[in-house]
């Protein structure tokens, strides 16, 4: 069996999550470079309708495990089904990708540890390329590897971004946060000419039922998803307190489909909750307008918002790092700048010609 690029799908209530479609879009590029098929593993119950969606997103092959025990994500049953299936293959997948979500981060390390292979967390860029390991401490690694999975992630320490790779063993694994890659164009195809579909046998063992779900509490309707807003007003430590977010909300209210968001420091201080965090360990956003207020522009924040169409930064420090990548920088006190901005934007609507 040819080597594959395998995306493990994530579904909630039987609907494939966007992160899976994003990974299929990016996975397609990797599959092209490897001249390998792109495959998708779907686990759930009554999920047949989702097969068409992953095919539309680019999957050449689909593995479907449909079983009542798989309706909701559970570590051990999911782990068992995926590992059992891969063990029937003559070679494991070359690359295996999963969302860096609460369930992806629960499952991916289990599979990596089982295969004793490498796993890069919270990757921000993926590619395929060569690597040569010359003499070093570890002689067993020496060799030339033409096709490695490059997984780049922001790193902690002396440098800001690191390329992590591990071509010595397949599958080469990575997790990726939702929103890092754009959604692919969906091209629906009739199944007959589309992908190969394999129904995977589900055989669970007694020991797979060690964790039993007693209740699921999902906030229906009011699900906040900052990745879907056109305009984001983000606040950082410079806001000084939780009160500052009221001012940001006022500015957000000037726009359609807008939302407030925050840096990690503001989240850690409890000024706003985690779903609103932008950055490496929060969400990656790419709105039409991003207004950063009192945010210094640390790399871990930047990787989550640098692809926004228009970035306006407000900071009282002219040397703040955010001014190195924003499109417009206003040097000033946000408590003066924002109220002025609110009144000018409101005014601009009243008298259309204001040049």
């Amino acid at each position, binding site marked *: 069996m040819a080597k594959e690029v395998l995306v493990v799908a994530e579904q*909630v209530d039987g609907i494939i999550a966007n992160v899976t479609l994003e990974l299929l879009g990016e996975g397609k590029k990797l599959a092209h470079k490897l001249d390998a098929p792109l495959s998708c593993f779907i686990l759930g119950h009554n999920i047949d309708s989702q097969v068409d969606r992953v095919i539309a997103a680019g999957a050449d092959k689909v593995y479907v495990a449909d079983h009542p025990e798989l309706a*909701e994500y559970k*570590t*051990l049953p999911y782990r068992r089904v995926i590992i059992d299936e891969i063990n029937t293959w003559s070679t494991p997948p070359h690359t295996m990708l999963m969302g860096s979500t*609460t*369930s992806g*981060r629960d499952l991916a*390390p*289990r599979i*990596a*540890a089982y295969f004793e292979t*490498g*796993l890069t*967390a919270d990757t921000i860029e993926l590619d395929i390329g060569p690597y040569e*390991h010359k003499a*070093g*401490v*570890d002689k067993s*690694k020496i060799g030339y590897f033409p096709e490695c999975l490059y997984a780049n992630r922001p790193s*902690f*320490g*002396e440098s*800001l*971004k*690191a*390329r*992590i790779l*591990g071509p*010595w063993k397949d599958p080469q694994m990575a997790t990726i946060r939702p929103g890092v890659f754009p959604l692919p164009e969906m091209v629906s195809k009739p199944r007959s000419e589309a992908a190969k579909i394999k129904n995977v046998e589900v055989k669970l063992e007694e020991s797979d039922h060690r*964790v*039993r779900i007693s209740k*699921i*509490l999902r*906030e229906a309707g009011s*699900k906040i998803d900052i990745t879907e807003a056109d305009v984001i007003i983000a606040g950082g430590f410079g806001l000084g307190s939780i009160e500052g977010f009221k001012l940001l909300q006022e500015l957000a*209210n000037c*726009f*359609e489909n*807008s939302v407030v968001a925050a840096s990690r420091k503001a989240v850690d201080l409890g000024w706003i909750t985690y779903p609103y965090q932008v950055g490496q360990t929060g969400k990656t956003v790419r709105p*039409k*307008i991003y207004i950063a207020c009192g945010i210094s*522009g*640390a*790399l871990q924040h930047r990787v989550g918002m640098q692809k926004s*169409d228009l970035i306006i930064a407000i900071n009282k420090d*002219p*040397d703040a*790092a955010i*001014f190195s990548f924003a*499109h*417009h*920088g206003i*040097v000033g006190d946000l408590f003066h700048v924002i109220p*002025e*901005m609110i009144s*000018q934007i409101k005014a*601009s*609507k009243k008298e*259309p010609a204001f*040049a």
Partner: protein
Amino acid sequence: MNKDLNIYVLIKQVPDTRSKAGVNADGTIDRAKAGKMLNPFDAFAMQAAIDAKAMGGPNSKITAVTMGPPPAIAILYQALEHGIDKACILSDRKLAASDTLATAYALSMTLEYVQAKDGPADLVFCGLQTTDGDTAQVGPEICERMDLTQITYCEGFEIRDNLVHARKVIEGGAMEVEADLPALITIANSYNRLEHKTFRGAKFVQEVKRNEAIQKQFVEIIDLADCKAEDSRCGLPGSPTIVSATWKIGTVGGSCKMHQGKSVEELVGEVVNINQETIKEFAKA
């Protein structure tokens, strides 16, 4: 009534990013200048271990386990000050450059070593992730190796009839589960904050530091040979991944149009004017 619980908590020392020392403006760390601290997530794990002990029988006990260079022993003393009963550190030069898989191997060998002396674990607590690695992988990788019941992103739990009833974070909400022991639980930062040091704990640490015999008994220092870990599975040789390149992303471009040195009205006016098309498109009517 629950049985006596044998509890382990895995903790790590990380660079201190709370103070300005050693923290550069762009978020990078100057490790030489930066101080050290207990991984903030592990403080929640420690509180969870303390809470679990209170739910167990009267002879329940907690052992803190870490891996790191000798100075990391500081966080073990910190654990004892908070009322943790015993501690063990795995320290060996051969562990340098371990990735998550190698780390999980070394820690599981350490756990097996302490379990051989102190009895099998009923519960192992970990912080959800570390602030320096930020992967959340080591806990689940240990579960895979040791075949423990896995609960990640836990924000609250109870032990009833020797079962764990836990609440955990999932995408878009939370989930309540019932799970069998022995279990490894990773604790999210929405868990209760670590309570203050106890008077007894602080006194005990003073005694441990003074008396070498007591120290040997309560703060054990071991190396790879002690826990029978294979060198080839630790450090660089045991790590399936390497860092092949790093980038210093310094100041880029200079393409930012700066607005400064004028009245707030003028500054905002400039920005709103230049971008009026975009702003109008999204401004509320």
